[in-house]
């Protein structure tokens, strides 16, 4: 177990290094974004003197390295800094956006994971038959349909014609959770559609491999009931790779939903990052991207640990 602890420590260290690198890349990369923050705040027609004054006030006219050092110093102490554009602390913005993104991701997750894994496993047990072909091909086709295409179909169907679900996911403060959930269903569905085929295929492939594995045959030849064979022997091994796949989608589920957020005017972290980039709001941009990056890294780490927990071979290594 100390071995495992060391391994986790190592992974965490590497992850932090990755995030540090990421922060530098973003800081440097943001410099090629057009305009400057004063210009972004005051608009294109503002007087250059006013722009210079506001840049000076924000410290945005200092050398890049100084700004980075100042920023990272505070960031490491837990202060995400002040938004240039909103002139107020970044943390509440990022927090609210992150919470929204997490809610949406959670709803999508809760729908898609059981659904797709169930479908994938079912397809695997019917391998080569029509049920399998249907699930595989439908999943495959759905996975690649851009979210805005499926979302439009959903809006037309549920929002406009059937009027079952609200077409806007925006949640005002104080909305009760049931209503929130209702509003999140439609934005979550395009994600479900995109991820369903992907996860189902992984689950299917893992299950097919596990079903064909020698140890499964051993279990069958022990005369175990099929349920026991599937649940005790097949799934445990089959779904290990699926965990990683699901985790690898966390980054996308949290930060990559610009399209869905745009369509359903949902204030997630994806649109926050984009907005920050457009406004040259460096502290906001950094915080947004680092939060998404950290979540992704954490999710991967968690998935690896979960996998290690389930797979004794990795536990010992």
């Amino acid at each position, binding site marked *: 177990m100390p071995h495992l602890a060391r391994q986790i420590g190592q992974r965490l260290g590497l992850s932090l290094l990755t995030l540090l690198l990421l922060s530098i890349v973003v800081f440097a990369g943001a410099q090629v*974004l057009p305009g400057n923050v004063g210009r972004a705040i005051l608009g294109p027609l503002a007087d250059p003197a006013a722009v210079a004054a506001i840049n000076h006030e924000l410290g945005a006219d200092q050398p890049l390295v100084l700004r980075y050092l100042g920023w990272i110093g505070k960031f490491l102490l837990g202060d995400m800094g002040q938004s240039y554009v909103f002139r107020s602390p970044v943390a509440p913005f990022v927090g609210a956006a992150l919470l929204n993104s997490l809610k949406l991701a959670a709803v999508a997750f809760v729908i898609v994971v059981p659904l797709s894994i169930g479908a994938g496993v079912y397809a695997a047990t019917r391998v080569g038959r029509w049920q399998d072909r249907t699930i595989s091909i439908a999943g495959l086709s759905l996975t*690649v349909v*851009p979210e805005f295409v499926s979302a439009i179909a959903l809006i037309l169907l549920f929002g406009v014609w059937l009027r079952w679900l609200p077409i806007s996911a925006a949640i005002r403060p104080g909305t009760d959770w049931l209503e929130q959930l209702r509003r999140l269903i439609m934005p979550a569905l395009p994600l479900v559609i995109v991820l369903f085929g992907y996860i189902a295929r992984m689950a299917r492939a893992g299950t097919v491999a596990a079903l064909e594995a020698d140890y499964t045959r051993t279990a069958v030849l022990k005369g175990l009931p099929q349920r026991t064979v599937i649940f005790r022997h097949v799934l445990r091994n089959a779904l290990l790779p699926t965990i990683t796949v699901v985790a690898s989608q966390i*980054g996308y589920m949290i930060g990559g939903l610009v*399209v869905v957020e745009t369509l359903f005017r949902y204030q997630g972290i994806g649109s926050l990052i984009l907005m920050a980039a457009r406004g040259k709001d460096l502290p906001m941009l950094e915080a947004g991207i680092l939060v998404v990056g950290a979540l992704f890294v954490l999710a991967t780490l968690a998935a690896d640990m979960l996998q290690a927990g389930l797979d004794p071979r990795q536990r010992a290594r």
Partner: protein
Amino acid sequence: MSERSGLGRVVRSSVFLAGLVIVLFWVGCALFGRWLVPIDPYRDDLLNTLAAPSAAHWFGTDQLGRDVFARVVVGAGPILSVAPAATLLATVAGTALGLLTGYVGGWLDTVLGRLIEVLLALPLIVVSLLVLVALGPSTITVIAVIAIIFTPLIARTVRAAVLAERGLDYVAAAELRGESAANIMFVEILPNVLPPILVETTVRLGYAIFTVASLSFLGFGIQPPSADWGLAISENYGMIVGGYWWTVSFAAAATASLVVGVNLVADGIQAALE
């Protein structure tokens, strides 16, 4: 066991054929659509905007009075030039990078590996948007951005395949006769990692179409006056509630059919090569 194994099996797969038919249909539209459609897809008709489907305009007209049918047919063009170009570029670069990191390894592998991880920690669509905000959208930029984003993904696949090959004895045999690293990478290893590269390329092509369409939808991809589907959806999706469903639905269906077609082809190839 036989020579025809790979190709023969691919061609006999019904999934592959179905996908191929769809893709070829759109490729045909992209190449010859301009001459097939009865109405100039770019001609505006400001006195006849947003007309419902009729005998004159089978799919109706858009907000500038342009014929939606003609635009859907011709709209296959931009995405089918941008996405494959980006994919091809990414494949070439990713293959080279994957061979280098996989075969040469060492610090190169470590550094590139870390960079790839940094990139993967970012939502790709956001990254591409940032780049496009910075550089301004143009077809070339879109191709470059998607190529750059896909390169590490392809490199990762290639690297994994190369690592598996690298452990095989024929590589050792080549080293034992003093072959150069370049020779080993490109002459010895490359032909053997072509199948996974081919699969990855077709899969990536599907995602490239997905991404180009999404970028166009967000306004950062293919630019007006192109008949591009994503752009058309972006320009019109607000109007579906107003009842102008035809301005969006056909382009959406076309996008969906193309990505599905490409993925069926990818799946067919993958199934045959595995």
